[in-house]
């Protein structure tokens, strides 16, 4: 397992390099004059040209890329064209917020999805099962941005139970942070929770109908132990794999959800940077997202191997 992890970590390097090259090449063609974005309607043509030169934008693209790469290897991702802040500062500010949204949402999705899936599997065909299955279908179909707006309207505006959006630093006010994360978490989690519930339900039904489970029950093994110690363990394998895929998807979803709930995460920074042509911020953010996607895939493989050594990747 250690060898696998080491190999996968090494393989990450060329992958990230390819991502960096693709991102740089694609976004170099964005038809946005950064100097004009900075100056707005101020500034003469000469001033724009001077500013573009100060930013190094009059140099060849390959030269700018290798300069960026040399810095990135040392942990220096350059300076934002727009804010003049180090890119690392921007990313360091936004990344924890995005991760708290994504990881928190995924955790809720997994817990709720598994719980619902088990409950439905224990009562297949019952009214409870039908409600859960139907609900899962609905939540899977609803677009996240619409769900987010619906939750805001219902819970924040109509009922006044939670704030409509905004962000409070956890260190300053843990309760305020928590109450502002609940709606974003629900928005990001309900769709994936539905997927996890359906897969868990299917897996549990298969396991509970298998010979070895019948044998365990016949031997007098307590039923909760049969469910949680034996059946669930085997039913979880596809759930773990799905969770890894979902992490990558949720990273993408977070870009939209951060906008809805005014969360100053990495997604909001990326969208602003895209519109402004702020390539250093875009480059670093997307490479970072790619890093986490690759890392999540590795973690999924490790988790699968731990849960069931028989299917451990070689």
């Amino acid at each position: 397992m250690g060898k696998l992890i080491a190999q996968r970590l090494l393989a990450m390097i060329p992958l990230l390099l390819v991502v960096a090259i693709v991102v740089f090449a694609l976004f170099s063609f964005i038809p946005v004059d950064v100097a004009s974005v900075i100056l707005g309607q101020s500034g003469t043509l000469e001033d724009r040209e001077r500013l573009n030169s100060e930013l190094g934008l009059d140099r060849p693209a390959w030269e700018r890329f290798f300069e960026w790469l040399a810095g990135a290897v040392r942990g220096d991702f350059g300076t934002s064209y727009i804010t003049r802040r180090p890119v690392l500062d921007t990313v360091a500010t936004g990344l924890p917020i995005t991760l708290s949204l994504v990881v928190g949402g995924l955790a809720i999705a997994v817990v709720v999805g598994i719980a619902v899936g088990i409950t439905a599997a224990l009562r297949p065909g019952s009214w409870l099962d039908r409600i859960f299955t139907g609900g899962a279908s609905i939540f899977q179909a609803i677009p996240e941005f619409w769900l987010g707006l619906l939750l805001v309207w219902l819970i924040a505006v109509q009922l006044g139970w939670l704030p409509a959006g905004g962000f409070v630093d956890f260190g300053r006010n843990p309760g305020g942070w928590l109450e502002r994360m609940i709606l974003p978490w629900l928005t990001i989690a309900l769709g994936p929770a539905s997927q996890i519930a359906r897969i868990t339900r299917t897996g549990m039904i298969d396991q509970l109908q298998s010979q070895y489970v019948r044998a365990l029950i016949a031997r007098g093994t307590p039923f909760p132990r049969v469910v949680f110690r034996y059946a669930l363990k085997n039913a979880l394998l596809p759930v773990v794999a799905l969770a890894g895929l979902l992490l990558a998807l949720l990273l993408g979803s977070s870009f939209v959800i951060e906008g809805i709930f005014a969360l100053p995460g990495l997604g909001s920074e990326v969208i602003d940077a895209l519109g402004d042509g702020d390539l250093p911020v875009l480059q670093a953010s997307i490479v970072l997202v790619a890093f986490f996607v690759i890392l999540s895939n590795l973690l999924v493989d490790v988790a699968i191997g731990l849960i069931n050594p028989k299917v451990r990747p070689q």
Partner: protein
Amino acid sequence: MHALRPPERLIVYTKRSTAVTVAMFAAASLLIAGCTSAPTETAESGDGPSGVFRFGINFDLTSWNPMLAPNLTYVQLPYEGLVALGGDGFSVVPQLATEWVEDEDSITFTLRDDVTFHDGTPFTADAAIANIEHIQESGTEWAGGLSAIGAMTAIDDYTFELELVAPNPSLLFNLASRGNVMISPEALESGSWETEPVGTGPYILNADETVTSSVYVFDVSEDYYALDEVGPERVEIHYIGDGAQRYNAVLTGAVDAARIGPEVVAEAESAGLGVETWTVLRYHTFFFDSGVGGRFEDPLVRQAICYAYPFEDINQAQYEGTLEQPSQRLLEVDPAYVPELEAYPYDLDRARDLLAEAGNPTVSFTIPFPEGQEAAYALKQESFNAAGFDVTLEPMSSPQYFSSYLTGEYPLVFNTSTSEDGGMYNYYKIRFAEDGGLNPLGVQPSADLVSLFDSAVAAESDDEQIDAFKEMNTYISENALDCGFMDISQTVAYSPDTIAGVDVVDFSPSSVIYKSVDLIG
């Protein structure tokens, strides 16, 4: 399929699990309720600033440089200028300068003697001169607005004189504009001014409590020279990009006021929110390609565009009928405003007749437009094409639009510049002068227009100058050098439970005057 029913003890287990889950949720709810922030402070009676004003805005702070992209929402908190714009957006009122004396070739300013920058540096004549030099050297449009200033001399600590190398009736207006605020000379020298604001304004940035791209916190400056004029003790600017969420934020009390779009104004009023609407921008037509051989060289062709401009359709389709249609670029409070001028009425038949009179030329052009303006521009395209033009549209993102429309690639655009609000002098210099910032093709103005401008500048009295500017105004209208005027408004919704209202400055976007907000306590 035979349903697998668990033994009874599992059902009991499940019920117990459910009870535990409910109890945990209840405990979490209590924890949230106990740990949430205290209710918003409200103003207390008595002297001095008090309370917190929370404002929701739709654009983030990208730079503290007052000369860069529009950031008045943020800049006006820590910064002030020598003079300021009055509520009408045109008149100039004292601020750091208490009075000034103008003569033919100089202006002498008398400054307040009780002002310090937030870093403790005293505000003196030398500091004012250093700032004006800094702006002049910036190469931005703000430098152009001060190009008439030559040598500057500090007469004493609180008096200084500007020598004028050329007449500029709009100079005081320019000094009152956003890019001309006073920055601490020490901050200018160290270069920190672009990332940390150090001004003389009523508020100081609280960097510790500020969360970039989320909420910007400002605390009142205890050394501010006019603390008795300041209402809130603290101002929080909440960046909320989504319009629906900004509206929800006011509705739910997360902020005291927020900028809202025209589409929710009626809803806000019926929900019991206070609403303040004011005109912020006067859009108009830039006939860039009006030089010799250009598409819009012929006044008849320009007039055809003016008659084909579907103002009312745009008003209804894009702006919920909230627009006003002025007749000219100058503001109504401008002495050179000509009340007799009328806006070109919408008349497609007249437009077609004018094009026929011009020989039915084939006039093809592309109009760029930023996101969010699809309905308005579709209507313009449809109407212009119906009149006989050949118009295509090019949609683009806002940053792309603002980086493209002045490149000279587009022969006609619809836009504006707040600097033009400063009167005919600015309007001519920026829009029509060969080297004007809004004349990307360098089109030479007609000899008649140049002559009128020269007469105005050389006028020996204010009345004579105003008359000359009025003549220019009439000439521009009659020759359709400009038309399609459209006053855009902004609206702020506020909670009448927490604030009594907001003060604003006309023709100044995002110009809620924070220090004068009256918090209800």
